[in-house]
């Protein structure tokens, strides 16, 4: 049955883990937005469990795409067919939703990016550099400090008539400036609106520097849920901003589209997906410091019921090469691996 076939797209970011099930006719069956909370493996398993409960038993996953900063981990757990960076995934999703889109503003939990597209192809992009000011976690933190739920941040900011000026260069400065403004007696909505403006200014100065921002403009990522930021963008850019329907899961959607693209290119290929029963098995992550040389690399090992699935973190590759065998005997694993190759 065609209706029971899905592409799975997974985007494991620092703050949220998103999953989508895409039908072969490009419509969305399910979208999940979960908080990663520093436990990506459990969150992925939890997500799979949730998805499984929402689809018929006869369902089949015919392709899996993984993206996000933990894409390697996600790909290992799921057996993904495509592993792509977030930039490509976001761009693919946006241009499928609207092939005419020319600019994507994406603000996530720990990073923010701008992607410039022309004729549906990425022509330029930028990500925030060493500083995480002006990302979702900063807003989260400030909302928590002010004692308001993050969901109310944007609507409150929209009530402001005279936003206050807040130093936006650095989140530490922004915070102290904000406290000073509070002490002077400015209202909460004015301060929140000022914060939105400062964040947008910071974003456009750092990430959007020298970029030719042309419409249609998409605003996606978790922060797009905040109408205060959206309004600040519209004022600053003097153009309307479109927040796509599935703004929060665009990365996952892009990953699903990429899995679909791969299958279209090679229709005979089978998915490496490890099955929906994944949520029932035990995954374990172990980390240790390698003492082989002075680099002291921190190695992470993913183990499924005693079998080592993957290792990474080493600079020389001696641990990553010895994968796919029982974890208690790495030397034997290495030899077996060589014979296999």
């Amino acid at each position: 049955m065609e209706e029971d076939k899905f592409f799975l797209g997974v985007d494991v970011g620092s703050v949220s883990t998103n999953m989508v099930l895409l039908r072969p006719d490009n419509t969305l069956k399910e979208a999940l937005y979960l908080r990663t909370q520093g436990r990506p493996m459990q969150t992925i398993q939890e997500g799979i469990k949730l998805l499984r409960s929402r689809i018929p038993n006869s369902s089949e996953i015919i392709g899996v795409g993984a993206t996000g900063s933990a894409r390697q981990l996600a790909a290992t757990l799921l057996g993904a067919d495509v592993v792509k960076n977030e930039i490509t995934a976001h761009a693919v999703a946006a241009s499928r939703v609207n092939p005419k889109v020319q600019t994507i503003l994406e603000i996530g939990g720990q990073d923010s990016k701008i992607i410039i597209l022309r004729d549906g192809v990425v022509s330029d992009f930028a990500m925030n550099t060493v500083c995480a000011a002006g990302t979702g976690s900063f807003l989260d933190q400030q909302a928590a400090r002010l004692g308001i739920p993050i969901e109310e941040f944007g609507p409150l900011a929209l009530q402001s008539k005279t936003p206050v000026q807040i130093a936006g260069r650095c989140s530490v400065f922004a915070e102290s400036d904000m406290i000073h403004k509070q002490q002077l007696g400015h209202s909460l909505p004015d301060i929140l609106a000022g914060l939105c403006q400062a964040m947008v200014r910071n974003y456009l100065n750092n990430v959007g520097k020298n970029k030719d921002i042309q419409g249609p403009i998409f605003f996606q990522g978790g922060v797009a849920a905040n109408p205060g930021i959206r309004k600040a963008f519209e004022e600053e850019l003097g153009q309307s901003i479109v927040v796509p329907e599935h703004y929060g899961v665009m990365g996952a959607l892009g990953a699903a589209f990429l899995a679909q693209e791969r299958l279209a290119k090679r229709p005979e290929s089978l998915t490496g997906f490890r099955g929906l029963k994944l949520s029932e098995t035990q995954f374990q992550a172990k980390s240790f410091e390698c003492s082989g040389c002075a680099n002291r690399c921190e190695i992470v090992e993913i183990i499924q019921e005693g079998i080592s699935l993957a290792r990474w973190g080493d600079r020389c590759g001696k641990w990553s090469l010895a994968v796919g065998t029982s974890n208690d005997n790495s030397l034997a694993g290495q030899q077996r691996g060589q014979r296999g190759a």
Partner: protein
Amino acid sequence: MKIGFPRALFYFDFFPFWAGFFHHLNIEVVTSPPTNRQIMDLGLKNASDETCLPLKLLSGHIQALKAVDWVFLPRMVSVEAETYTCPKFLGIPESLLSSVPTGIPVLSVTLNWRKGQRLVLKDLQTMGETLGKSKIEIKQAFYEGQKWQEKFQKTRGAEWNFAPTNLEWPPEPERLKIALVGHSYLIQESYANLNLLKKLREKARVELVQHVDQIEIETNLLELRKKLFWSHSKQIYGAGNKFLADPEIDGIIYLTCFGCGTDSIVQELLSRKARQRHKPYMVITLDEHSGEAGLITRLEAFLDMIERRRVHEGYVSTHGERLDCNSNTL
């Protein structure tokens, strides 16, 4: 007698000269090991927090020098006529004296080619007195050092294996060709740059600043209204400008580090030209990161962008011209 030579900063450009120089004087030169986590940690702890990553690494390498009679820290003011090195080079050795292990004396000399060879030689001879070497010996050692340096520059470093992972990949025409520009002490510093060069070579053919002929570099500097007076920046801009015009180069990656003053100018000059020429261009800023995720994401996205663009541009449009030909984006 053993002289300790830290494997950082000027090591990547001028080690051959000093190796030849001391070799002729029968002085053993000991280098610190390639950067590892311990060296980096030592440097980050000890060096001034306001300086740049390469100087912090130098501090770590100085501390890693063991069982030597001297720590050699030349003040390389200028390495060719009419130029200076980066101002932070000029503060060596004083800015790093606190990193020198107690009990080991510092051997230094001011090298200033702006004053001409005669005075460079004189300064070296003054240092020679400390080492108990005659003026004649120093003069011969100087010529020997120059010979080694010339050979190094002629072979473009091919005979000097700086990084343990100096792999050469066979050229394949289908593979993308990427130019990686930036200071030698960042590009060749495989620990601090998270093995960028090797990672890039796995995915594309790579051109470096040192692959460009000196004559070509000079030609590519002519259009500047004012001369660049930092020698490294001259090389980077000249080579970068050549790569920008080269149709075989699919994209340019500029590797810089947080707080680099000279790069802040050269990087901007190159990025403006890249935009005019619609050449894919990306800046990667290094600092004390040890997590690779950010670097890999940027690298993959950049290569993906070029590849997808290449496929896209392969179409012959019925419209006759690209709709965005007047846009100033890349």
